[in-house]
């Protein structure tokens, strides 16, 4: 992750958010970042965790069909 390329958390997929979380984690554990940056990373990490939790809590299965012969109600069969 490039340092300056901080995307808004809202748009991240679970995988993206979690991957960034892991990067933050190892950066914090290495202890090589300046304190100010570490605090920012920590806050970003918390936001990412919240985002991931929200994604998990609100996830609905996304179903699409390759063929139009499929009845429209399959998604309601969840």
């Amino acid at each position, binding site marked *: 992750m490039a340092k300056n390329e901080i995307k808004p958390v809202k748009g991240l997929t679970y995988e993206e958010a979690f991957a960034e979380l892991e990067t933050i*984690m190892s950066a914090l554990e290495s202890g090589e970042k300046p304190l100010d940056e570490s605090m920012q990373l920590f806050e970003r990490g918390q936001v990412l965790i919240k985002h991931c939790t929200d994604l998990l809590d609100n996830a609905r299965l996304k179903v*699409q069909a*390759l063929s139009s012969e499929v009845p429209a109600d399959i998604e309601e069969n969840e």
Partner: protein
Amino acid sequence: MEQLALFDASPRWTVSDLTRHLRLLLENDPELQGMWVQGEISNLVRAASGHIYFTLKDSGAALKCVMWKGEAAQLKFVPREGAAVEAHGRISIYEVSGQYQLYVDSLRPLGEGVLYQEFLRLKALLEAEGLFDPARKRPIPELPKRIGIVTSPTGAALRDMLKTLQRRMPLTEVVLSPSPVQGDEAPQALVRAIQALNESMPPDVILLGRGGGSIEDLWAFNDERLVRAVVASRAPVISGVGHETDFTLVDFAADLRAATPTAAAELATALTVLDLKQTLVESVRMLAESLMDLLDRQQTLLDGIQTGLRFYSPLRRIDIEQQRLDDFGRHGNALQAHRLELAGARLNGLQNRLAALNPQAVLERGYSLVTKDEKVVSSRSQVRAGDNLRVRVRDGSFDARVTGKG
């Protein structure tokens, strides 16, 4: 005329002993303890107990059959009078009536035997080709982003799979590639559905399934073309066909075999949303911990620096200088006192000397001081006769006149 019993060497049996002996004879013949018998069903009786009694017969003979409740409940078709069937079981004797009979554990329509032979032939063929080789099987991703489903859009299998996926891993994207799952056109349609999925929206794993049914219903899943399509699929395939007891050739070819469609959906979601949440909880803990560690380390560094700073601090220099100054001060004071003492002593001496020089003191001793016009007269040359002089004595002064120079 009857033979004398005395010479009769034939063994004597009770009916029970004989019947038991016969039963054991039959039961010790492995040929008779697990075989298929073909025939037509007649005299079918379903007892209230759940057991089924019937007779299998062909043009030349009849065989009493019994199927116990447990096995009868497993039947996938309804046996009827006159139906041509194959019964699997063992031969034994019902001692109470002396009736030998077939104890049936499995019963199927006659055609199925042919299907089964075909199944075995094809299985051996494909196996020899290496299509079922475990080494060929690919791992199933733990956390697939996209799951492809190949099944009937209207079947219970689809509903079960979607329900399971929603419950376990709703972050997954599901792509349904619909196909009929039974009938003559099913194998080719299933093959196309798998190919279409791989080509248009390649999933990380494919679930290929259908719900339970008779062996004919599941037959499409023994089709050679479908087996080859499963092997050729770019995405790994999990099969979930029928029930636990059903094995199709697709099950052997699949990268992973699940007992049912629901089980297939479970195997495709090794990591569930609960696992992810658990990981997140752990992440929260670790994140806080790393930050605390970091802050602790920084604090320690800071403490160290503070100690160092105190050592090199200008304040400390000032303290030191102050102390030196104090020391100097103390020393200086002593010196000064001494100096003052000396000065005092000198002053005293001077004072005494000065006192000694005080003209008044001379006057006290009886001497006089003579001045003329405010000047001390210390030589006779300074005066002439007739000069007025002033004389100072101890207690004052008076005027005098020079009368002569003597």
